[in-house]
Each structure stands twice: as C-alpha cells, then as structure tokens.
C-alpha cells in the first residue's frame, strides 16, 4: 500500500497507541468520580490538557475537548450565535471546509447574514473585500488557516488586524495546519481555533476548540459540568491522552517534517515534468504559502475519479476534490472558487497528501502508475 491521503486522515502511531492503551484497560474510571479510579482519569485529562496548552502556547483552561474539528467549528460558530443578541452578520470564505460552510448556512437559515469572501486563483482571500464587508454588526470572521484541498496558507496576521479594527471575533480552522506549520496561539492572538487529532496521528473522534480566555459561548451539548460547563458528556480519556501524545511527537519533528514534505512535493512535480506530463497545480507554489505535503493536481482531459479508482486498484491511495448531492458528483466548491471563469470542471482535481510515513518509493509508485493512465488518454 502507498498511502498518499494524509490530509484525509493519518494512522495512529505505535507511540500514540501505547500511550492510550492503559486508559482503556487499567485507568478506566470516570473522570467525574471522586475515588482513585476517577482521580487517575481526571489527572490524565488535566496532564494532557496542560501538555497541549504548553505546546500551543495557551492556557489549559482555554482548551475545550470536542469530538473533532467539525464539532469544534460548530461549537464556535453556533455557540457564538446562540449567545449573541446584537450582531447579525458572519463573514467566511468560499473555500472553507463544510464544517464551517454548512454551519454558516444553518445560521443563515436562522436569520444571520453570511458573506462568503472571494479568493484568488491561489486561494487567498481578498483582504479589501473583507475590509469592505466587516462592520460593527459582524459577529465573527471564520477562516481556514490551511486549506484542506489546495493547501493555501492564509495570511492570518492581516486578517487579524482587520478583525481587531472592527472589534470582531476571529475563528480559524487550523485542522490541517497543526504539526505542519508552527502554531503559537498567543502570538496568533485569534479568538478561536479548531483542532483535530487524527490529522497528526492521533485517534479519530477527538479534537479541541481553543477559546480565548474571557469569551463566553453557549454550549452545544448540555447535561454535565465537564469541560468547565462548556461541553457536557463523560470525557474520552484515552483519546485525549492520545491527542496530547500525537501533538507532542508532531511538534517535536515539525521543522524537519516540513522541510521533508516540501522536498517530496518538489520531487513529485519534477518527476511529472520530466516525464512530460501536463498538469495544473491547484493552489500556491510549494513553499511558505502552501501547506507542506499537500499537492492538488488537475490533469487535462483526465477524469480525476477514474484516475483515483485506477490508482486504488494498484494500492495507491489518494483523494479527489469532490462532493456528492443526491444525483451528481460535483467538483468541489474550492476548485470552483479558485477558477470561477471555468464553466466545466469535468477533470476535477486529485489530491496527493504526503505524510510522516511517506517515502520516495511511494511517490515513485504514484508516478509509475499515473503516467500510463494519462498517456493512454493522450493517445485517444
């Protein structure tokens, strides 16, 4: 198997799994129980929270554990909307993850006005458009820091200044960014950050919302005093422990990891060019403006779904940027947003996402497999 779909998810490493195991079988108490089994579980959560806070440079009390990035984003946007009684507008972008877009659409149905910022061909938002739309009626601006499909890394500092001038909350979806680029929450100085552990070798089903100290949110889930009354329900102790361990390992290796993924990315594109394969790289060039390891490619006249299927048959796993409604498979909203002038997106896009286990031989396997598929189309 050549797993090149690390932006979809990553595998739990042995190191992370070993850290989690005792909390399934040995320390299985309820963290809310006041006896030794419960105390052990509670201590594990607090230790994990402290670790994560230290690694990301925030206060432990500013982190609320959730079931993942989607819940974190829902908690932020709906929680703000439900606790707000004065502001009626939300600003986001056309290239957000569905966690944000669908939540925004839900809030639109409840009466909020939602503005979807345009992006340029590389996926960068139009800062002037943001300046023109933001008002003192804007409740929150929600921006994806590292785009999951095309890897665009937004310039958050500029966005932050605009939000500050309008006294508007800023939420960033950092699900793809964590352990890929340096994240210092105090330095970023944003109000909310969504995080998901399974993107960096933690388990699926655990994440967090960073909420800047002092901000009140209406909880989405009621029924207990867990997470300082911000998210009810018995905590998922083993997964929280795994989350902290995965982050620790990921951040420790970040600089080397980023450099390696960029090298692999260049290698992949160079190999395609050497073989005379025509492609379009969607999103920014590999470098400081692009999420390391994210390679979104469109091959002219090649249906990305067919390419993906044929690669799958050869044990090479990549993604397409697609969404389905009840009757059609459509190219993603992200690809449509960066190329609004293209009417027919029939070729779609193939996302190759490299990760910590990727080796040159995986890329070579991808190249060897895709070249005949593309050349076959060229010959028709």
């Amino acid at each position: 198997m050549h797993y090149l779909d690390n932006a979809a998810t990553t595998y739990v490493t042995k190191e992370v799994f070993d850290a989690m195991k005792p909390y399934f079988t040995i320390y299985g108490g309820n963290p809310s129980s006041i006896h030794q089994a419960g105390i052990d579980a509670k201590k594990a959560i607090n230790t994990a929270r402290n670790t994560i806070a230290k690694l990301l440079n925030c206060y432990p009390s500013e982190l609320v554990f959730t079931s993942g990035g989607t819940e974190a984003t829902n908690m932020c946007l709906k929680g703000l909307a439900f606790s707000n009684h004065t502001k009626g507008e939300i600003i986001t972008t056309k290239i957000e993850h569905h966690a944000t877009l669908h939540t925004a659409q839900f809030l639109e149905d409840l009466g909020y006005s939602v503005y979807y910022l345009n992006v340029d061909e590389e996926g960068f938002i139009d800062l002037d458009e943001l300046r023109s739309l933001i008002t003192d009626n804007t409740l929150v601006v929600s921006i994806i820091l590292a785009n999951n499909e095309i890897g665009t890394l937004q310039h958050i500092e500029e966005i932050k200044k605009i939000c500050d001038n309008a006294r508007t909350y800023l939420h960033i979806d950092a699900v793809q960014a964590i352990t890929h680029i340096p994240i210092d929450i105090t330095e970023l100085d944003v109000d909310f950050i969504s995080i998901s552990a399974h993107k960096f070798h933690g388990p699926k089903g655990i994440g967090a919302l960073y909420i800047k100290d002092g901000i009140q949110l209406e909880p989405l889930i009621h029924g207990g005093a867990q997470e300082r009354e911000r998210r009810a329900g018995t905590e998922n102790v083993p997964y929280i422990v795994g989350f902290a361990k995965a982050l620790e390992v990921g951040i420790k290796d970040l600089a080397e990891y980023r450099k390696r993924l960029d090298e692999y990315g260049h290698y992949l594109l160079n190999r395609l060019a050497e073989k005379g394969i025509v492609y379009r790289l969607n999103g920014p060039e590999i470098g400081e403006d692009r999420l390391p390891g994210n390679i979104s490619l469109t091959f002219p006249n090649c249906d990305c779904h067919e390419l993906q299927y044929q690669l799958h048959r050869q044990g090479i796993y990549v993604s397409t940027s697609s969404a389905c409604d009840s009757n059609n498979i459509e190219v993603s909203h992200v690809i449509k947003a960066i190329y609004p002038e293209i009417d027919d997106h029939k070729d779609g896009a193939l996302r190759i996402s490299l990760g910590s286990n990727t080796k040159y031989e995986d890329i070579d396997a991808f190249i060897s497999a895709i070249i005949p598929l593309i050349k076959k189309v060229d010959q028709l």
Partner: protein
Amino acid sequence: MANKVRITKNGHVIYEGNILDIPIKEDAIIKKSIEVFGDEDPCIIHQSFVIKEYTNQLLDHLKETPDHCLEKEKLKEKIDFIDFTDIDKICIELLE
C-alpha cells in the same frame, strides 16, 4: 482509461461506447455496495465506485479473452450485472 466496448445481440449493435457508461442493474449496484461498503443505500460517489468495480471486472475478463470478445451463456454469470434483457444472447467486444 476510457476503454470502449461494443455490445451486440443477435448481430445488432445495442451499445457502443465507454465501458464506464454501460447500463448496470440497480439491484446489482446495491448488492455490490453491500459487499464493498456494507451499505444498502449508497451515495452517488459510492455508486460510482461500485460501477467502476463492475466495469473493471468486465474489462479484466475481456482482456483475458483471446479475441477480446465475450460471448453468450458461458459468461452469463460474469456479466449478469449488465442491464440488458436476454443477457445470455449478447456479445461484448473490447474496441480499444
């Protein structure tokens, strides 16, 4: 990628085109979806995947056949997912 096939019945061409576009029985899609995904109500992306599974299976049979042509009842069970009547009377030929 885009393999073309010709399907004839009693000497008449009833389909010629991309193998991916041959009609597949709905119950065959559901059956395969349950087999692959454990899902009896697949979304369009999963349906599309299942169709590719069938058409690639057919393509493999065609490529293994010396003249790239599958004929009649001896192959019925290998092609009974195709949505044509009298499936045992059809002949499928790989064109490209």
